[in-house]
């Protein structure tokens, strides 16, 4: 094989450089767009951010409106959703991965979970309306909303947990069993601790998704205008719904409110993600 001549080398170099620049662009362009959007929102909403805004309740006067009920509603929702979805999701993943690996039923379940993850969220809203609100008689409360969202994010939790369980090498399971442990002892003491980072990541992803859902909540009866702090048995609202409501108002002042609420939402999201990353890194470092 002859060594490439100078012309060939130049062509190869420019080709390489072009490819590199293309990859760089596909990262920078969306980031730049995102930064612009966020920057725009922050600029619009920063002025409205204040302690009164956070503690206030919605009002017909834009300047007096606040997001306290929406904030509480959102936080309660994601808290309950996590409480419902994570244990069930992890347990399901453990069953599929550890006990039912070769059974027919496990195979069928696996296929369906992947499908469920892709179902439009409004369908879950309709399901929640019929089953939780009407059939179980929960009414249009936060609990019903949380159950609905839990169903929605369950496939995500299951899939993430399964992936996390898969990262535990079979050699470890074998080692535990060879020492005289039962299947369950091996899972609980060896496999689950190892899968914890992945499971946490999956849980946080699920919760983050639940935080941003609007359509299903509307279907199960989240209202828009609440002036009291919601509790488990009362009507409720959530941040995305509040934002949606303000954005549809004609007055510009409400747009500023919406921007401020978006900022709050982003901050909550950021806190959640940071916690997740922190926890994951902490557990990862042990390995």
């Amino acid at each position: 094989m002859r060594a490439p001549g100078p012309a060939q080398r130049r062509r190869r170099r420019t080709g390489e450089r072009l490819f590199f620049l293309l990859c760089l662009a596909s990262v920078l362009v969306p980031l730049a767009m995102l930064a612009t959007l966020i920057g725009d929102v922050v600029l619009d909403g920063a002025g409205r951010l204040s302690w009164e805004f956070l503690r206030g309740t919605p009002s017909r006067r834009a300047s007096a409106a606040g997001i306290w009920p929406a904030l509480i509603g959102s936080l309660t929702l994601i808290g309950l959703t996590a409480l419902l979805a994570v244990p069930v999701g992890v347990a399901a993943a453990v069953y599929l991965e550890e006990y039912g690996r070769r059974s027919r039923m496990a195979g069928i379940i696996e296929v369906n979970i992947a499908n469920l993850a892709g179902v439009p969220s409004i369908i879950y809203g309709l399901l929640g309306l019929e089953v939780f609100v009407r059939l179980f008689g929960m009414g249009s409360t936060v609990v019903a909303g949380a159950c609905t969202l839990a169903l929605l994010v369950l496939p995500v939790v299951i899939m993430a947990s399964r992936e996390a369980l898969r990262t535990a090498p079979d050699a470890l399971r074998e080692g535990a069993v060879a020492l005289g442990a039962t299947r369950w002892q091996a899972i609980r003491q060896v496999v689950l601790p190892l899968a914890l980072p992945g499971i946490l990541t999956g849980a946080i992803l699920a919760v983050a998704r639940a935080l941003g859902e609007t359509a299903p909540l509307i279907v199960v009866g989240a209202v828009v205008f609440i002036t009291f702090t919601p509790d488990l048995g009362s009507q409720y609202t959530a941040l995305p719904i509040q934002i949606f409501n303000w954005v549809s108002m004609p007055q510009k002042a409400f747009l500023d409110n919406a921007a401020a609420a978006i900022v709050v939402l982003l901050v909550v999201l950021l806190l959640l993600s940071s916690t997740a990353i922190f926890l994951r890194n902490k557990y990862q470092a042990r390995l």
Partner: protein
Amino acid sequence: MSPHRTSTPGRARPKIVADEVTAGFGDKTVLRAISMEIEENRVTAIIGPSGCGKSTFIRCINRMHEQSPIARIAGRVLLDGQDVYDRSVDPVLLRRRVGMVFQKPNPFPTMSIRDNVLAGLRLTGTLRRKAATEVVERSLGQAALWDEVKDRLDDPGGSLSGGQQQRLCIARALAVEPEVLLMDEPCSALDPIATARIEDLLHTLRDHYTIVIVTHNMQQATRVSDRTAFFLGGDLVELAATDDLFTRPRDPRTEDYITGKFG
């Protein structure tokens, strides 16, 4: 510290007896009617080419073979005269009497060195709190690892070198105080110095445990074992005192294998 192995000792009573053991996966048969005795407090080596069934055989002894959903087995394996496949035998309890060390060291990564050693006892819920320190020192001492890690027992199990990890796995297996130790090519992932350490370790363990070691390294078998079994294609071809099997084997297939005339 025990001196080097003396010339072939006399015969000991059989600790494990395999009686017409036939095993396989699905419709593939890996072991064919294996019958052999493994003597107590001796090291028995099993050699043979890849796929001859040596790993499957030892996994039949501690009932790890049945972990696979398509595994099947027939015949008896007697431990101290009792068939381990009898209905009344709990495989979980069996595995506390028969320990196993694997080819690739597998310390539990989320646990410290100390916790790794105690893992066997904790996993099975048999750890007495007060005895913990003593168990850790004894087991690591038996595995010739105590001096190297006594100052860092809280370091994670995965922070050790390959050879140390394997000795940690041996300590972990010994902490449960088994009667038998099964070793599946324990040195094949290790460098020569680590290998030499573990072989040296086997000389001292021999007095207290019955050891069965699967190895593809014939020179290792000559160095560490008292008796050697040669497996070929699922059959037991020859079982004899190690010194005899490697200097004047009886079966021509053994002769061909150990002189490299296969393939």
